[in-house]
Structure formats: C-alpha cells, structure tokens
C-alpha cells in the first residue's frame, strides 16, 4: 500500500507560490496596461488559479523531472520593472514604407496600446489560449514584452523581419509574446533570436522564460517563421506555440534549440481549412545536463491539407531530449497527407533521447506516416573523411553538421544558418 500511495496522490511537478488578484492588478497598473489587457490578465489569473500544477500523471509531464525547479521562488521574484525583455526589431524596409503598406511590426506593448482592435481580436483568443496549459495561463497573467507582426491582404515582403530578444543575465523571469497575423495572400519571413545577454554567475539562481507564439495565416498567406533559442543555462524555458493555417496558406516553421537548462515547448499547427500546408522543422542540440522537450502536434482539422515534420536532435554528455509528436486527423479530414520524423544522434552513452511518435486518425482516406530513430555517430563516415586528411574532431563536426543540414537549409537567411552552424560547432567542441 505504501508503495502505491505516491501514485494515488501525485506530487505536483512544480509549486506556485501565493499569487493573488491584488498582485496581478498591481503588476498591471505598474505596466500601465490598457484596460482590455488588464482585464485579460485577471481572466488569465482566474484560469491559472483553477488549473492544477503539472504532475507526472499527466502524459505531457510524465517524462519530465522538474523536482529541482523552484517555481514558487521564481514567481515571488516577478517584478514588472525587471521582467521586461530587450526587444530589438529589425524591419526589412523603412518604417515609412511598411506603414504605407499597412504593415505593423512593433513591440507587444506598443501594439497593446495602439492596435487595440487587432490585439483584442487575436491576442490569446483563437490560437494559444490561457486554458491550454498551466504555463499558458501563467503567461496570460504576466505577459510582458514581445513582438507583433501584421501584414495586410496581398502585401508580400520578401526580406526577413528580424527580432532579437534578450534577457539580462541577472533576470529571474520573462514572459515574451509573439503574435503574427498574415491576411489573405500576404507573405512574410520572421526570424526570432532569443538569448541571454551575458553569462550568469555559476551560482546564479534559477530563471524562467514563459513565452507564447501565435501565428494566424489567412487564406493563401505564406509565412516562413524561424526561432532560435539560446538562453543561458540557468533558464527554465516553457513555451506554448501554435499556428492556425487557413485555406491554401503555407507555413514553414523552423525551431532551433541550443540553450536553457530545461525547455518544454508545445508546438502545434492547426490546419483548419482545406489545402493548407505546414512544414515543421527542428534542430536542437543538448549538452551537459540540458533537457530539451518538444511536444509537437499536427492537427488536420480540414481535408486536403499537408503537414511534414522533421525534428533532428544531437545529444552529448548527460543531456536528455524528448520529442513527442502527434498527428491528429479529425473526422472528415479526408485526403490528409501527413508525415513526421524525429532523428536523434546520440554522441555519448550517458545521454538519452526519447522519441515518441503518435498517430490519431479518425478519417479513412489519408496518408500518414512517421519515422523515428535514435542512432550514434557511425565509424565508417568518420574514417572515410579522415582518410582524406581531415582530423578526427573536424570529421565528427562535418558528419554532425551534415546530419542537421537538411533542416538548416530550410532557414531562409544565410546569417541565421551560419549562426546556428557556429553554435553547433561550439557544442561539438
């Protein structure tokens, strides 16, 4: 009996401290929220208060060990003054040119004040919702900083919009939000780079980034979205990211995972009208005792849509990665074409990669396939490269880069590709 007891009453994975309505109101007032946002925070707080903390009975958190994560201490440190992010927006065209076309590319706060209608319509309404998860609710309470990109119907911008989001090395909390809305036939590229400014002291306290990404693509819109995460090693990174893809729209979504102590990212593409396409790619590399968890979901809600996911991971030292992917085909979503693959390259025997593909198919005329592999670095390619004069460490680097290449090539900006390759090379050592 005593052995079963902990299973009957699972301990929460995390413990939140005492958050109160008054505290949330004070936070809102300190940030000078417009009324609509202040209301949203309180609504999020109500949801958060009623949402149980993640526990290991929940499939989503079953493989996660957060026993050392001190959420209550971190939340006690939430401060509207210090939890802001540094957001560096680099538009591809001059502000005047973009404005003339009706494009909005601005910070979350600016959009919250000046583009109220847009924000009230899209901010955490149809994409990421506060009811999604514990961390989505918490994000709704404390959201602060981030970026909004809006491209009106028919406007096509070929050069990338870029965002550099920085946490300070001594920062304890951050709650960045990304909202992208592309109207009918619009086209854009958005590249986000998340990192910590400077290096926290080795004994720096735990920090948390709790972000959300919302992407709404209207009919025939096309978006290339890239996000590279390179937080410092004291950061626990929780993100809820979702795209809603309407008729004939196309999303190319690449995530890069390099930093953080711990990451749990929920990444979801909802194909809600026919003939939408979602191409989801991931490249992540975990070292030391990093834990990177990605939960991906390809939801085929409408018929005749296509989704293709390829997530590739390398692991070394005692790192751990978990990919849990699901393709869900809703009743009536005939002619679905869905694929998912997760490839893991284990560079040390003490690292561990879990790869859990899943299919839930409720329509009969579909093509759904998946593949997942966990492998080690093979000797023959290394010997072959060495036989051409390439030293062992460089041969390893080439093979590992080659492993990631098919994903990295999907990034539409050379500078970002180079940055990712350089970080991968650093990790290989």
């Amino acid at each position, binding site marked *: 009996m005593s052995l079963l007891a902990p299973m009957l009453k699972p301990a929460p994975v995390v413990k939140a401290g005492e958050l109160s309505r008054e505290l949330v109101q004070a936070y809102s007032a300190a940030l000078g929220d417009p009324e609509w946002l202040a209301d949203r925070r309180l609504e999020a707080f109500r949801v958060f208060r009623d949402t149980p903390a993640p526990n290991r009975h929940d499939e989503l958190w079953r493989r996660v060990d957060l026993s050392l994560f001190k959420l209550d201490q971190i939340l006690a440190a939430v401060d509207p003054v210090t939890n802001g992010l540094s957001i560096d927006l680099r538009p591809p065209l001059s502000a005047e040119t973009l404005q003339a076309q009706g494009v909005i590319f601005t910070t979350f706060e600016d959009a919250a004040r000046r583009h109220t209608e847009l924000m009230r319509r899209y901010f955490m309404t149809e994409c990421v919702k506060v009811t999604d998860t514990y961390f989505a609710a918490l994000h709704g309470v404390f959201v602060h900083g981030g970026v909004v990109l809006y491209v009106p119907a028919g406007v096509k911008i070929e050069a990338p919009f870029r965002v550099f989001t920085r946490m300070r090395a001594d920062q304890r909390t951050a709650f960045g939000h990304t909202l992208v809305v592309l109207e009918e036939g619009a086209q854009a590229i958005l590249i986000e780079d998340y990192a910590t400014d400077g290096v926290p002291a080795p004994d720096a306290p735990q920090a948390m980034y709790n972000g959300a990404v919302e992407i709404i693509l209207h009919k025939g819109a096309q978006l290339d979205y890239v996000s590279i995460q390179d937080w410092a090693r004291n950061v626990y990174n929780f993100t809820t990211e979702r795209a809603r893809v309407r008729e004939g729209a196309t999303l190319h979504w690449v995530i890069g995972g390099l930093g953080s102590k711990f990451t749990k990212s929920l990444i979801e593409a909802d194909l809600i009208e026919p003939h939408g396409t979602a191409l989801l790619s991931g490249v992540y590399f975990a070292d030391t005792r990093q834990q990177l968890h990605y939960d991906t979901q390809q939801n085929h809600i409408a018929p005749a849509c296509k989704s293709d996911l390829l997530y590739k991971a390398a692991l070394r030292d005692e790192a751990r990665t978990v990919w849990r992917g699901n393709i869900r085909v809703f009743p009536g979503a005939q002619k679905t074409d869905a694929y998912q693959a997760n490839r893991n390259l284990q560079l040390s025997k003490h690292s561990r990669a879990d790869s859990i593909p899943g299919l839930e198919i409720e329509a009969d005329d579909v093509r759904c396939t998946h593949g997942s592999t966990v492998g080690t670095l093979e000797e023959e390619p290394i010997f072959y490269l060495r036989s051409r004069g390439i030293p062992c460490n460089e041969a390893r680097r080439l093979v590992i880069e*080659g492993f990631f290449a098919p994903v990295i090539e999907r990034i539409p900006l050379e500078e970002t590709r180079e940055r990712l390759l350089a970080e991968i090379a650093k990790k290989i050592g």
Partner: protein
Amino acid sequence: MSAWFEIRDLHVKVAESDREIIKGLNLSMNEGEIHAIMGPNGSGKSTLAYTIAGHPGYEVTEGDILFKGQSLLEMEPDERSRFGVFLAFQYPVAISGVTVANFLRTAINARIKAEAAAKNGGVVPHDVKGIPIPVFTKQLREALQLLKVDQSFAGRYLNDGFSGGEKKRAEILQMAMLKPELAILDETDSGLDIDALRIVSEGVNTLHDQNPKMGVLVITHYQRLLNYIKPQYVHVMIDGRIVESGGPELALHLEEKGYDWLKEPEATQ
C-alpha cells in the same frame, strides 16, 4: 634503407578477433611506378588497402609499412593522408548533408592548417587562411571536367544517392584535388560500365602524367582495368601473401589461366 614505399613482413588481423588476414606480405615500389595487385576474392586485397590507410577495424600484429622512410603505422589515418597517401575506396561512404565542395574544401584546408602548424611548433596559427575561394573553384572546375561530370556535382551530398559510376568518379575527383604521392585504387573498376571505366582510367592516367612522381597501386580482381591503367609490375596475392610477381604479361596470363595454378602448390603443402 627502405624503398620509397615498402611493406615488410606485414601481418594483419581483424581488430578484436584472432582472424589473421594478411600473413607476411612484402612489397616495394619506387617513386612514380604503377603496380597492380591481383588476386581472387578473399585473398586480403581490400584489407591491405584499408590497412595502408589506417582503418581502425584492422590491427597490424607484425611487420611495417614504410613510406618515404617513415612508418605509416605510427600515423593516424588523417596524418597518412596529409603525408601523401590516398585510398580510392571500393565502397565509398555516403556523407549525408555534406556537399562535395564543402568536403573538398575542408580536406584541402586541413592540409594547409597542418602545414602551418608544423612550422609553428604544432599549433595551428590563428591567422592561417584556407584556400582562396577562387583558386578552389578553379581547381574544382578542372577536376570535374577531367572526370566528365556536371558542375552541379559539387553541390550534391557526398556519395549520397550516387550511382556506382558516380561514386568511383567522385573518388578520382578527390584524388585530383588532393594530389597524393601514393594512390591506392581498391577495385576501382567494380561496378563500372565500359564508358565509366574509360573515364575513370583516363582520369588516373592524366593525373599520373601531370605528376609522374606519383606512385599508383592498383588493386583488382580482373585484368580489364589494366588495359587502361598500365602497370609496370603485377603481383598476385593469395591468402594474405604475394605469391608471384612479374611484368604486365602476368596479368594476361592470369586472365587466361585464372588463379588456380597458383593456388595448387599451396594446397599440396
């Protein structure tokens, strides 16, 4: 005093096993010579090629391999390559995600770095520059022309999805770019149709004409490659040893008679 390239009483076994494959092999070559080693399947020809290149799957238990007065056995596989040894693989390995051009540039730059390090007390100087891109591009273009392959070849992933003929051409392309002093061709003719065989052989011959000091060791089961790449010396390898050596006429004799006449005395011993 050793010959330019010399194998002395070489014994090789499969690593982590007791299976001996090469059982006291001797061979010597002078600079610029073309030698052929012929032998039936299972005689140890490929093991010999891999051992010269330093494959970790084989272990030398006795003897030595000397090149330009130095023992190759003391060198890592990449050092052997930079020292001038090149092995054209029987089964070239696919390197997914690495383009032919990227790979070749890395290999050439590894040589430049190693040379710079040698002059700098073993440390690669920080300011060492790789091969200038225009120089590299020109060399690569010429090498591609030599092997009669399309320029787009350079942008393909190395050996990944290559046909048998493309793989062999890629090997000789690498040889052209890396300019070895000793080239070992391991069953380069296998899997080639007559046109590809001609192109690959002409490639090797052109490289030998360009650098007459390059030694070539052709390892082959069949005589047909030797119609194109003409050796001065032919050796017959059976059961891990050289059992017969002679001039080019030996290859023709083998073509006619097979290997059995050489095996028989072995069997009666």
